[in-house]
């Protein structure tokens, strides 16, 4: 398993682009939590006519790859329209850094997710998008953000999700993770963290 950071990760980590904050930004979002060890905050200034991201800044609490991915996504988003920026995905961001160790792929997901949340917040505020009704689709999208550390791919991609249901405020998730898997508890914990912030979800039932 590749463990070492690429030179490009180290370069962005040591000299992050677009670091800091924007006073009175047009949009901003924070994702992740310090208790989990990583958090990213993205600030955007957007031209209301062209919907181009004219300025972007980020702050981060997290490891070297968290900082490097924060840096790269701001670099990638700057000058793009909201539609274009929304399409930046975590694999692309990781590739732009010449790859990340599999165990660090979740950093890329978090950075991209924060950028998308900031864009979404802008769209909601400016009536460019409607608030999506909560359904099991949202749960599935959240599971796509959870990376299995050993291989650096998400749970859905790895066919580790056997069943997802949402009934009367209860999210039911059945995962395929063998009992001896070292990351079993971590993943269950992460699924909970991802779903807990949705007020629509009153209870989470995970079976493996």
């Amino acid at each position: 398993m590749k463990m070492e950071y690429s030179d490009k990760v180290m370069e962005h980590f040591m000299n992050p682009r677009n670091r800091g904050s924007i006073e009175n930004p047009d949009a901003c979002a924070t994702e992740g939590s310090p208790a989990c060890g990583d958090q990213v905050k993205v600030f955007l200034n957007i031209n209301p006519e062209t919907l181009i991201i004219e300025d972007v800044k980020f702050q981060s609490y997290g490891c070297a790859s968290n900082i490097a991915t924060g840096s790269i996504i701001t670099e990638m988003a700057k000058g793009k329209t909201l539609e274009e920026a929304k399409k930046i995905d975590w694999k692309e961001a990781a590739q732009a850094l010449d790859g990340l160790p599999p165990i660090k792929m979740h950093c890329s997901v978090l950075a991209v997710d924060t950028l998308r949340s900031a864009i979404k917040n802008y769209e909601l505020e400016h009536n460019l998008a409607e608030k999506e009704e909560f359904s099991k689709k949202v749960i599935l999208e959240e599971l796509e953000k959870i990376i299995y550390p050993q291989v650096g791919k998400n749970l859905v991609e790895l066919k580790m999700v056997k069943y997802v249901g949402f009934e009367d405020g209860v999210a039911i998730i059945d995962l395929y993770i063998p009992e001896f898997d070292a990351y079993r508890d971590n993943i269950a914990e992460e699924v909970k963290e991802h779903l807990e912030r949705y007020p629509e979800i009153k209870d989470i039932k995970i079976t493996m």
Partner: protein
Amino acid sequence: MRERLYFNNCLTTPIANEVMAAMEPYLLENYYPENFNKTGTKIVEQLEIWKNMVAKTIGADDKEIHFTSGGTLANNIAIKGYLLANAGKGNHIICSVIDYPDILANAAFFESSGYEVTYLNADKEGFIDLKQLRESIRPETILFMTTLVNHTVGTIQPIKKIREILNSADHYIAIHSDACEAYGRIAVNIREMGIDMMSVSGHKIYGPQSSGFLYVDKKIKLAQLIHGIKRLDDLQTGGISVANIAGLVKAIELIFQDFHSYHSHLKQMSAYFLDKVNSEIPHVILNGPTGNSRAPHNLNLTFEYIEGEAIMMMLDYYNISVATGSACASQGLKPNYVLQALGKTLEQSHGSIKFTFSRYTTTEELDQLIIKLKEVVGKLRENSTLQPDK
């Protein structure tokens, strides 16, 4: 000045030049002692002298010293050997939640094999709960295991008090101690401390990797764990590197020829560095105890509002080695279990950095470290999502 500033001596220490020199003859003429020839008989005699030298450093007899290929092997030979030899006497073991992984992994193994294990809690400074220890003793309790100096926060367990408590039982409870962090850094006398078995690792005292010894009190019987031809030792049968033993003994000799000044050097380095940190960097928490109940080489500090892997990697970029308790730097993505058991928050674990010093550490090196550390902490804090309440 070394190219890399190394402050991770808890992981492993650099090998001493004198140690390498002491090993060389045995690498070039690597004969086994069993041979009844000039070299073979010479090594047998030499081994006795070496065992005697090692024994003296802990107040033991030479027959109680067994050379092993490292600390983990010594731990396994002792724990498994003792429990197997005493299988009929009881099936209850006591250790603590903050013990070194060798102890915890052995405890888990025996738990899965039908033994009962009590994991004692620790207080916020890393001292195990003695009241809980007293209450945990049962007629079936046969073994107490402890990490004499905690590998994360440097807490020295009050082993004499522990022995007194264990002695209050109606039957004998043996103590096995992992002393890999302790030996050579604090004074250890096994009779005064009431320790029955103790493991020591060579590569944490400037000796070669895969070297170490196990002390076993002569009244203790261990079941044979490793079966095979008896070469150098009856507990670890088979081949043990004579060169590694020679290196280990040289490393021990170097430490104990002037233990007092070595010990005070480590103490001075820690005090010097802690003082600098406190005056130069705000929002820092010392994890673990202060004063004489802390091992002299260990400082575990939390830098608030930032994450430890980033601190470690940025220092690494500047050729400075330290360790962190952050989940992001662990293979299992879990925060350090010792800091968690001490009641630290997840953020405090993630932001922790462990600095461990050696006999080669100098104040000049620490001055360089503090300059870089201040820069790194400042840079990371400047762009952190977390900020102190103003």
